[in-house]
């Protein structure tokens, strides 16, 4: 039965939550609505995975400092000591300095025979050396090969996902592939960017885990 043949679930959705709850009886005899109700419930089952957890060892001390600096009740409060505020004066000073230097270069081009600013070369000492980069890229290529091997094994399962769960895995892998491609493009613009390489590694690891989960699911 497809959505064109049974509109019970659609009607229940339009009527409200009680109507959806009452669908249980109908689903005993309608496989299509049973599947739709299962997916409806699956959203609730997946929701707890959206919970975020991370360590914040200095957060309470920040709060304590803010509370200690707060005036008594009713008085005007000072601005919060936010983490971003600390670099703003330094950044403003640096920007001012750079603008001053540019101004000097532009408005006094021939005074001391200096080169035009467009010819100036900024020293770009990379954080990674060429040799380290080659090692990283070589390790990355090997890791990628092993994931590709796993992808080839999983491909038949992904081409025709038989269940909603496998379809969800497929969706997740597509999202990961898209993010990986985007990050790789960014890396091509600056091959020495270690932060992007770490991000890329995390994505590869997530892809590997997802492929392994998918294979387990397909076997069970």
């Amino acid at each position: 039965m497809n959505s064109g043949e049974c509109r019970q679930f659609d009607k229940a959705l339009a009527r409200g939550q009680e109507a959806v709850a009452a669908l249980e009886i109908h689903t005993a005899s309608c496989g299509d609505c049973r599947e739709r109700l299962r997916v409806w419930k699956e959203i609730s089952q997946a929701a707890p995975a959206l919970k975020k957890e991370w360590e914040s060892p200095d957060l309470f001390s920040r709060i304590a400092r803010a509370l200690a600096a707060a005036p008594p009740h009713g008085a005007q409060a000072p601005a919060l000591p936010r983490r971003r505020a600390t670099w703003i004066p330094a950044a403003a000073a640096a920007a001012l300095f750079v603008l001053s230097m540019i101004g000097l270069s532009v408005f006094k081009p021939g005074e001391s025979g200096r080169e035009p600013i467009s010819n100036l070369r900024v020293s770009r000492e990379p954080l990674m050396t060429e040799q380290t980069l080659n090692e990283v890229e070589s390790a990355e290529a090997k890791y990628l090969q092993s994931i590709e091997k796993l992808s080839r094994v999983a491909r038949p399962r992904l081409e025709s996902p038989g269940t909603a769960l496998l379809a969800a895995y497929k969706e997740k892998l597509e999202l990961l592939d898209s993010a990986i491609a985007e990050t790789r493009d960014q890396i091509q613009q600056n091959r020495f960017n270690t932060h992007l390489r770490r991000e890329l590694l995390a994505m590869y690891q997530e892809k590997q885990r997802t492929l392994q989960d998918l294979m387990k699911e397909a076997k069970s």
Partner: protein
Amino acid sequence: MQIGRPPEDRSRISFLAKEGNLPDSDRPGGPRDDEALLEECRAGNLSAFEHLYEMHGARMKSIAANLLGNLADAEDAVQDCFLKVYRGAASFRGASRLSTWIYRVLVNSCYDMLRKRRRYPLEARSEGETLASGREAVTPASDHPLRLSLEACVKDLEPRRRAAFLLFEVEGFTHREVGDILGVPEGTSKTLLFEARRELQRRLWKRGVVPRVGA
């Protein structure tokens, strides 16, 4: 351990906060009820705030991270919330439980930040958003294959529906608590959640993750 007292007292506050040298009776998890905690908050007792942080901090961070889309802003929102609780404790009349009031303040702080910064659509990221120190949010042990798609869809929900969904389905509040937090009747909380789930199912269908359902 009073907050907002003359500077000579503040050094002691910093010391206590830093070293965790709180009396046993003030330790988080001790036998404190809302009334007593509120009184201590009104009096500016730092240990009361530490108790609240120990009890609710993790959940507050999670809610803020999901509403704001990144971890650093979430920490700012929690900090802002505690400051507002301190300032507002004197005028809190106890119409709801202290804990739900705190979450209400937090959700409003998040909305304020969204309005003020107006950068959520550009900066919203789900997993992998790192703090300046390089720390990352961890995925719960019970991960679900729908998580990434669901997370992307939740971000696009209308704010009140998103808040209702996050509070009820993700954080496990009851509809009564969600109603108190969002400042709406319990029935409205149920309606918001229903609308959120219907919208999510529709969006998930558009992504081809789940079978299609009607309006």
